[in-house]
Each structure stands twice: as structure tokens, then as C-alpha cells.
């Protein structure tokens, strides 16, 4: 019997309309866990490295994590992978919600889509019954609307549906995949889905997921819940509000946006408005948010409430989470939050990423101001900021006129536009738009995470270690007192010694070696989460989370029956990390690409940055170009990867 997983993938060839239920090799679970780990393995094995992201043989994989469908709290993530049309590297984007557990109950660990359907279809998975159904009547429908229509037409209110909107259908490079309150938004995987002509996947499952050592497993889950209760009652003191609790940033709960509006940058990630927040704005924004917010909601089997049901008068209801409420308003320099909720409704139905899209629109506005784009490009565009943004959003999603050029994001648009437009696509890493954040002093830990993260999205790389030093020794001692999550006691010392200024402060403290240690720990937990399907909000993202390196091995072992200790689990992390790096290295990723935006910090330290990257690569067992060495790969049972890289001349015998 297979525990914690179903042991079957659903492989669908869209070109031929062929559907197969394929048993998986349990050995792969022992080597890679599941989720991102096994997705990466499939991508490595099945596609040649020079394949175009839109080539039919690139698999678009909807994967559950290994713990999804078990009672482990917060194990609900769907990990979607393909090649990103934006970065051209392996793109993985994840969503919470209810899709992954439902897929497990239907009897599948993954849905692997290959080929291209001749016409627009949706896939209906109901336990053993799987159909490819016509979706021509859903063409052009909103992503939220589509989910409702499909549930209705199937007469299955308990089905969960992942759908694309018009943006995905039109292969917009920043298209998302939407599902309930969640979405896989980053890296343009909605465009890959649209290219395969799949409008949606609907799933309903009523089968069991087995647990290897049930009593032990439930006890561990109870401990996780107890700790969540404890953390909800005991916010971390001396850090800013959004960092005090668990979950993803509680943007739906909190109405006080002084910190974001004054510290994040407006427009095309340019302007900091240090005196933005005042009493009048506070009152107005609070009333707007409380008016449109109908309920705070969670994903499957999670006590947090990171999302919300949003009903703006006159518009159809949608769901929102995290930071999207601010990205459009801030990019458009609109001081009214009402605009944010209104345009986000349209953007969610279109199915676009809430970071890349507003950034790209603000980029276009700047190019017009700079005379690089002309009035002719904006013919018919309203002159007010709100109108301009709605207009640009419509053009991008429909790929009309200037929108067609902008649709692939700022990097590709700048390349097409030329005339110095590249200078305006300033907030990218590896061709992908970043958070609108510009800071003063370089933080060495963040430098490394920004530069090297394969996710290319800081919120899904950072976590665990404080973002900035505590002001006093008392605060530091208070913080480390009950810090059970550290993999090693030395991390407590790093916090105790880290000071806001002086010798032991940024950028030279944490030191190069300490920074590498810290980054490795943070990455490690994210790689576990992404393989297990556990939400980062209960694990890798917040300070002092309920899941950590000390309980994960026990939880995994009790769920799956696989013998597991901390060392064994760390080795799986290194294996998955290196395999993912190898996929990207094979597609051309090198040291030269590992560059945070030039203006991310005002104060830069080229010599230190070089040392940081050198030390990080060395620590990882990579050469100085960021390529895993033969020895590293062999030690991680990835000898076949080393061979491949050697044959391609990427790894040279030294």
C-alpha cells in the first residue's frame, strides 16, 4: 500500500486526447518526496533543455505535495511547473486553496498535461472517471466566472476548479491560474495552460488517503495545532505588525497600511512617499476595506485566515489574498484603495499576476512620459490614472496594440521597444518583475536570496530569520529564548550579535559565512514545503512557525512509513535544490544572471557581493559559475545529471 500519496499520476496527451493513469515509482518518493521535487525530476527526464516553453512536449504539471490530503494542517498547496515563458527557466508557481487535497482524494498525485488540444477544452476528473470536455462556450470567460459555470454545469458544488481567464487564453506572459481564493500567479504558467488550450481542470474526489503510522501522525498534527494556537496568542514582539504572526502577510485583516504605503515604492517601482499615510487616508481606506470584505477565509485544513471574499458594489464577487490590494493603487499613483479593489476584480477575472501586471502598466506610463512610447501608442486611452490603468489592463490581456508588446512583461517589452526602454525595466531578476521595494543599505542575506533563488520571488525564498536586527540586547534575548525552530544553536548567536549599526551591522554582519548559513536554512524549509505541499505561511515564511526541521522528519515518516531523520531530510533538500539548479543550468542559467536589480539598495558593495556569491556557490558544492560539480551531484545520487552536463560540455573535467 502507498501511504500519504496515491501512487498514481494522471497523464493526459491533449494532442491525441489520450488519458492514462500511471503508477509511479515509490523510490522517487524516497529520493525527492513529491511536489516540486518529483516535478523537477519529470521535467529533467522528459524534455530536452533547449525546448521552447510553448513547445507541445513541455509538460505542464499540476502536482499535489506529499502531505496534501493527510490531516497535516495547511498541507493544501498545488505546485504547478513548466518552463516559464517569461524567464525561460523552469517556472514553478504554487497555489493554496482546495485543489490539491481534492486531487489526492480523486486518486492522483499529479496531473501531467502534454501536447496541445486542437480546441479549447476543460478537464473533468471525478475519481476514476476523467473526461476532456469542450470548453468553447467558456472562451473569454473570467477565471472566477469559469469556476462557477463549470461547477454548475457538472452539478458538482463540491468540485474544485483551477481556471485561466482571458489572459491565459491569449498567452499573456503574466497570466495566472486561479482557483477559489488562491492563484498560481508568478512566472506566466497561465499562458502555458492557455497555449495547451486548457481552460480549466475540475476535480472531485471521494477516496481515502492512507497513513502509515496513524496514531503517531495525529499526535504530531495535534502538536502543530497547539503551537499555532500558542503563536496566535503570542505574536512575536519588537517586529512590525505583519511579521508578528503566522500565515502569509495578513493584508486582508489589517487595515493599517502605513508601513507598505510609505516603505514600498510607487509607480514603476520608483517613488517612496514618506508622508503618505494620514488620518484622513487611514479612515477612508479602513472603511473601504471593511465595506468590501465579506469574510476572512482560509485554504483547506488551515486555521489561518489569509484570504477574503471581496464584493465591491456593482461588480461580481471574487477572492483576494496578500498584497494585490495595494499593487495596482501604488503602481497607478491612485490614493484611493477603492480603485485597488475594483481593478483587482477585473484583473482576477482576466487571470493576471498582481505584481508583474501593475509594474508593467506603470512601466508603460513612464515610457510615455519619457517620450519613448508615443501618444499614438496610447490612442483612445483616458487621461486620468485610473482610466489609464483599466485601459492598459484591457489592452494587455487582449494583446491589442501596445498591449501586445507589453503582454510579456517589462523585460521583453523593453527589448521590443528599444530606444532606451531597457533602463525602465529596472526591477527585474532573471527577466521577472520583483516586489516594488527599494532600500538603503545592502542586507547580505537578502542579497543572496534575491540573487540565487530559483523561485525568483523573494517572499517565497525568505523567512525564519529576522529581516532586520533588534534594537536592544534585551529584545534579542527575548527573541532567541523560545526559538525552537533553529537547525543549529549558532543562529541564536547570530541574532544576539547583530546590531542596527556599528561593526556588527549590515552589510558586513551577518558575515559572509553566516549569511550563507542563514540562506541555506531558509531555502531548505521552502524546498521541504514545496515538496510536501505545506503552506509557507505555516512553515518557511513567518518567524517561529509550527513546522520546522525538527518535527518535519517525524511527520513525514509517520505519514509515509519512510525512515527519515534530519540528516536524511536535509539530503533530500540538497538533491531537489541541485536538480532544479541543474534544470536551469541546462537552460543556460549562469552566475551572470544572478543579479538583483541595480537600484534595489542604494548602497552597494561589489567586492562583498562577489564574496557572498563565491561563498554561497562553494557552500552548495557548485563551481564559481553556479553549476553543481560532479562530486556534489554524485553524492546526491544525481550521477546521471553530472553525466548529462558533461556530455553537453556544461561541466568540464577538471
Amino acid at each position, binding site marked *: 500500500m502507498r501511504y500519504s500519496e496515491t501512487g498514481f499520476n494522471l497523464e493526459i496527451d491533449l494532442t491525441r486526447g489520450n488519458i492514462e493513469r500511471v503508477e509511479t515509482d515509490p523510490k522517487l518518493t524516497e529520493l525527492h518526496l513529491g511536489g516540486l521535487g518529483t516535478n523537477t525530476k519529470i521535467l529533467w527526464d522528459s524534455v530536452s533543455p533547449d525546448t521552447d516553453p510553448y513547445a507541445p512536449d513541455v509538460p505542464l504539471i499540476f502536482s499535489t505535495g506529499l502531505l496534501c*490530503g*493527510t*490531516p497535516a*494542517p495547511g498541507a493544501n498547496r498545488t505546485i504547478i511547473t513548466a518552463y516559464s515563458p517569461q524567464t525561460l527557466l523552469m517556472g514553478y508557481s504554487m497555489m493554496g486553496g*482546495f485543489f490539491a487535497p481534492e486531487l489526492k*482524494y480523486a486518486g492522483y498525485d499529479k496531473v501531467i498535461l502534454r501536447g496541445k488540444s486542437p480546441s479549447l477544452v476543460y478537464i473533468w476528473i471525478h475519481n476514476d472517471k476523467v473526461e476532456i470536455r469542450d470548453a468553447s462556450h467558456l472562451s473569454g470567460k473570467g477565471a*472566477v466566472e469559469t469556476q*462557477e459555470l463549470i461547477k454548475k454545469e457538472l452539478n458538482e*458544488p463540491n468540485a474544485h476548479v483551477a481556471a485561466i481567464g482571458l489572459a491565459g487564453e491569449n498567452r499573456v506572459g503574466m497570466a495566472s491560474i486561479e482557483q*477559489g*481564493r488562491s492563484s498560481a500567479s508568478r512566472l506566466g504558467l497561465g499562458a502555458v495552460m492557455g497555449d495547451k488550450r486548457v481552460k480549466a481542470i475540475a476535480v472531485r*474526489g*471521494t*477516496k*481515502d*488517503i*492512507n*497513513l502509515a503510522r*496513524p*496514531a503517531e*501522525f*495525529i499526535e504530531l498534527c495535534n502538536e502543530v*495545532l497547539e503551537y*499555532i*494556537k500558542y503563536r*496566535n496568542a503570542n505574536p512575536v514582539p519588537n517586529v512590525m505588525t505583519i511579521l508578528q504572526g503566522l500565515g502569509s502577510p495578513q493584508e486582508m485583516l489589517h487595515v493599517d497600511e502605513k508601513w507598505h504605503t510609505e516603505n514600498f515604492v510607487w509607480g514603476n517601482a520608483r517613488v517612496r512617499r514618506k508622508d503618505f499615510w494620514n488620518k484622513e487616508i487611514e479612515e477612508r481606506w479602513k472603511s473601504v476595506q471593511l465595506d468590501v470584505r*465579506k*469574510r*476572512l*477565509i*482560509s*485554504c*483547506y*485544513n*488551515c*486555521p*489561518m*485566515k489569509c484570504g477574503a*471574499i471581496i*464584493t465591491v458594489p456593482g461588480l*461580481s*464577487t471574487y*477572492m483576494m489574498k496578500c498584497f494585490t490590494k495595494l499593487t495596482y493603487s501604488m503602481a497607478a499613483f491612485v490614493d484611493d484603495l477603492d480603485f485597488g479593489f475594483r481593478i483587482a476584480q477585473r484583473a482576477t477575472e482576466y487571470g493576471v499576476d498582481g505584481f508583474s501586471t501593475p509594474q508593467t502598466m506603470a512601466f508603460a506610463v513612464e515610457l510615455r512620459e519619457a517620450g519613448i512610447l508615443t501618444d499614438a501608442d496610447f490612442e483612445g486611452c483616458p487621461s486620468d490614472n485610473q482610466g489609464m490603468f483599466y485601459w492598459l489592463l484591457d489592452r494587455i490581456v487582449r494583446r491589442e496594440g501596445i498591449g501586445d508588446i507589453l503582454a510579456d512583461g517589462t523585460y521583453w517589452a523593453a527589448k521590443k521597444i528599444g530606444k532606451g526602454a531597457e533602463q525602465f525595466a529596472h526591477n527585474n531578476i532573471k527577466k521577472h518583475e520583483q516586489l516594488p521595494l527599494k532600500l538603503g543599505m545592502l542586507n547580505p542575506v537578502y542579497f543572496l536570496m534575491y540573487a540565487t533563488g530559483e523561485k525568483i520571488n523573494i517572499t517565497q525564498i525568505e523567512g525564519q530569520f529576522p529581516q532586520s536586527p533588534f534594537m536592544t540586547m534585551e529584545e534579542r534575548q527575548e527573541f532567541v529564548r523560545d526559538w525552537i525552530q533553529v537547525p543549529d544553536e549558532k543562529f541564536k548567536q547570530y541574532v544576539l550579535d547583530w546590531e542596527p549599526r556599528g561593526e556588527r551591522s549590515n552589510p558586513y554582519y551577518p558575515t559572509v559565512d553566516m549569511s550563507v548559513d542563514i540562506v541555506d536554512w531558509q531555502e531548505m524549509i521552502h524546498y521541504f514545503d514545496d515538496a510536501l505541499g505545506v503552506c509557507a505561511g505555516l512553515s518557511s515564511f513567518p518567524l517561529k512557525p509550527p513546522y520546522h526541521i525538527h518535527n518535519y522528519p517525524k511527520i513525514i515518516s509517520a505519514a509515509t512509513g519512510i525512515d527519515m531523520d534530519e540528516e536524511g531530510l536535509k539530503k533530500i533538500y540538497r538533491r531537489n535544490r541541485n536538480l532544479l539548479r541543474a534544470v536551469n543550468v541546462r537552460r543556460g542559467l549562469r552566475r551572470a544572471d544572478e543579479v538583483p536589480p541595480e537600484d534595489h539598495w542604494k548602497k552597494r558593495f561589489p567586492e562583498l557581493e562577489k564574496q557572498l556569491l563565491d561563498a554561497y556557490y562553494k557552500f552548495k558544492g557548485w563551481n564559481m559559475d553556479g553549476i553543481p560539480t560532479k562530486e556534489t551531484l554524485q553524492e546526491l545520487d544525481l550521477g546521471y545529471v553530472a553525466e548529462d552536463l558533461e556530455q553537453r560540455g556544461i561541466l568540464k573535467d577538471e
Partner: protein
Amino acid sequence: MSKTKKKVKTIKIDLDKCNGCRACEVICSAYHANPKYSTNNPARSRIRMIRDPIRDVYVPVYAGEYTAAECMGRDKYIIDGKEYDECGFCRAACPSRDAFKEPDSGLPLKCDMCEDEETPLCVKWCLNEALVYEEREEEVDEEIKHEDVEIGLKAMVDKYGLQNVIDTVTRMSQKS
């Protein structure tokens, strides 16, 4: 008729506090698996979230009695401007829906308040306190179940004969 005190187990359901996570379904189905916790499958749960996020409908409902026939009516309720289906509050395992039936056999399920546990586990796993366990004492009419008495007497009749039992009962009633 005399009154006796009876402990009544109840669960208070606060729809406003529900975040829709379905942890109640998760732990219920795991607890009632055999062996305990060996599987998880919300379709076997004896509590179901009737949920329709777009309409902001979130109603946890416990499995009650089995009923062989669909009911008439199926009215709508409007509460605070929000429309609910009557079925959304109904505890019956009935032919009109798949809730509260074992997915393999179709046999009806019924909430047993997790007999062996101090409190029902759905309540324990509901950290948002949408489900709150309450015990209250109620005075109830002392109930005499004639069928139960009959079962006991039937054994005596079988052993001693009806006439002997009647004579004994008569004698006992005269003594008291």
C-alpha cells in the same frame, strides 16, 4: 410524570466565525476510520461544510438521521440579505444529495459526538471557535420504554410461564 436530569451534548455553530477550512471534516473522517486515523477522506465525514464562497455561504452541518425519501418544499431562507438553501441546514442523509453517506456503500452516516473523546474532535480542531462544545443539563420527563420492559418480561415468561409471572407481579404490587 416524574422528571429526571439528563446531560445533553451540544455543539454551538457560529457561522460568522467559520473560515471555511474544513478541518472539521478532516479530523472527523480520520477519527472514524478503522483503525482510527488510518485514512483520511472528507467524503466520509459526519460533518460537512456546506460552502459556496461566492455567495459567502459557510454552514457546517452535522449528520443526523437517515431518511429514505426526499422531503417536499426545499425552501430558501434569506438571512441578513444572504440566501441559503434549506438543504444547507439539513442534517438528514437523504436521497437528494451525497452528503452523509459512505462513498463506497452509500450507507448513511451519523454524528456520534466522538463518543470516546472528551469533546468532539471537530470542535478541538476548529481553532476559530466556529464550533463550540457545550454540555447542558436538561430536566426531562422520565421516560418508560414499554418495549424495553416487554423484552425483559418475555424472557421470564419463556422460563416460568405467563401465569406465574402475572401471579408474581400481583403479589409484588400488593406488598408495596
